[in-house]
């Protein structure tokens, strides 16, 4: 995976007075484009737009960008396979706001499900022994009462 060179980044179009050297705050890569392979072009467009708007100095634009992204994610019911790709790339590119939006979606898929259901959806292999799992369930019996 090629290293992303900060000085070659996509210009921050929200700020018309961008200095030639990136400000220290910009190194946290809010503005760096995150090309995500294997997801549909529609999602890529939405992600690009989010990154653009989220780099704005106007708080209202940023809030709207976050809401738009959340709405899109909910509407399209982004699934597990896509999520896995997106969060991995957002994580590698260290884009905290993008990551948070998609992590919240992953959490939505875990919420209120039983352990077996979660394992199934996420393709998780149970590497506890039956005794270990039993002991863990006993730590918080209130979470497993149904």
């Amino acid at each position, binding site marked *: 995976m090629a290293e992303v060179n900060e000085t070659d980044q996509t210009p921050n179009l929200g700020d018309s007075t961008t200095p030639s050297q990136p400000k220290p705050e910009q190194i946290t890569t809010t503005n760096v484009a995150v090309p995500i392979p294997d997801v549909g072009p529609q999602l890529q467009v939405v992600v690009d737009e989010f990154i653009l708007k989220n780099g704005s100095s106007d708080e209202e634009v940023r809030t709207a960008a976050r809401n738009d992204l959340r709405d899109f994610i909910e509407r399209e019911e982004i699934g597990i396979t896509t999520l896995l790709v997106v969060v991995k790339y957002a994580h590698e590119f260290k884009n905290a706001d993008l*990551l948070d939006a998609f992590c919240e979606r992953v959490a939505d898929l875990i919420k209120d*499900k039983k352990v077996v259901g979660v394992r199934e959806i996420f393709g998780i292999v*149970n590497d*506890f022994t039956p005794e270990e799992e039993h002991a*863990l369930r006993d730590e*918080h019996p209130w979470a497993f009462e149904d």
Partner: protein
Amino acid sequence: MWNNLPSDLLSNVFSYLPPHSLARAMVTCRHWHDCARSTTSRHQHPPWFVALPTRARNLCFVHNPIESTWHLLGLKHVPSLTRPVSTIPGHGLILFKSTGSVPLQLSVCDPFTSRFRHLPQLRKPRTNPAVGVIEDCPSQFNVYVAGGMCKAASSGAASYEPTLEMFDSRSKNWTITGSMPIEFAVRLTVWTPNESVYSRGVLYWMTSARAYSIMGFDMSSNKWKELSVPMGDTLEFAAMVPRDGKLAVIGGTHGVNVLVWELGEDDKWNVIERMPVELGKRFVGGSTKCVGIEGGVCLYKEIAKEMVVWRKDRNHKNKWEWYSIEGCNQISGKRLENYPIKGLFLHPNLACSSSFF
């Protein structure tokens, strides 16, 4: 795949989970278990109401606000002759104090993991002081003790202790932060307040019975002040509630007429809410108590009786809604006594990384 994502990534996901979902995530596989254990919750979820029977030391009822279910936890280590004072809500801890005429001994307990710890002795041992809590951030809290009575060294006669002491959860030490006017030490001792509320730099306590009044310690100016409580001599029950950083009071008469006031910038009270009449009618009879936390208030009687909650709406951040919740009279099919309870609120903390223990 999902089994072995980077830990900080998984912890980020888990920070959005409510407590019961987090507990289940811990059981899916080893990696998820370890990540969940070191997750810091974002506390976006409603707080849990905790009901401690006043006469059954080792029981703790908790109400899951999302599933609307009651659960019974066993408290293993809480010693006898202690009583719950308040909670350290963001850390998921219950603060207990010793009862009787011994100098105050405080301890904390996490009801979900049964972890328990005594706080060290006070610098100036005293009986019956006011006890307050301030949580600055997820990794630190301070406990304050003000007033109380101590034995004068020479004569052996008791006198009021006009000092304020602070416990720092990081250094795990008490320090005397300053002195206080003797009249406040007397009031805080004689009127034994309940939970404190910290708002706009002032630590407030309210007397625990009629006629209600509030005492506040301004942290930055080191000055004490007294505030009257609206309808303070007619309210039958009242409690302070932090509300979006401001101080509010909920109180009622005859269980029917319940009002909420908020303290304005000018230290004047404004009525901001009234309990709906239909709820009030169902709530009549018996002695009512109330407790509040940032984001919610609960009016309750005994454990099996219906309770009324006024809470921030999950879907509309600026709206608060009134709910009634059924009391708990059975667990796993077994009928239970209708215990008188002390009600508290907290956010369950399942992470073992809590630095305090």
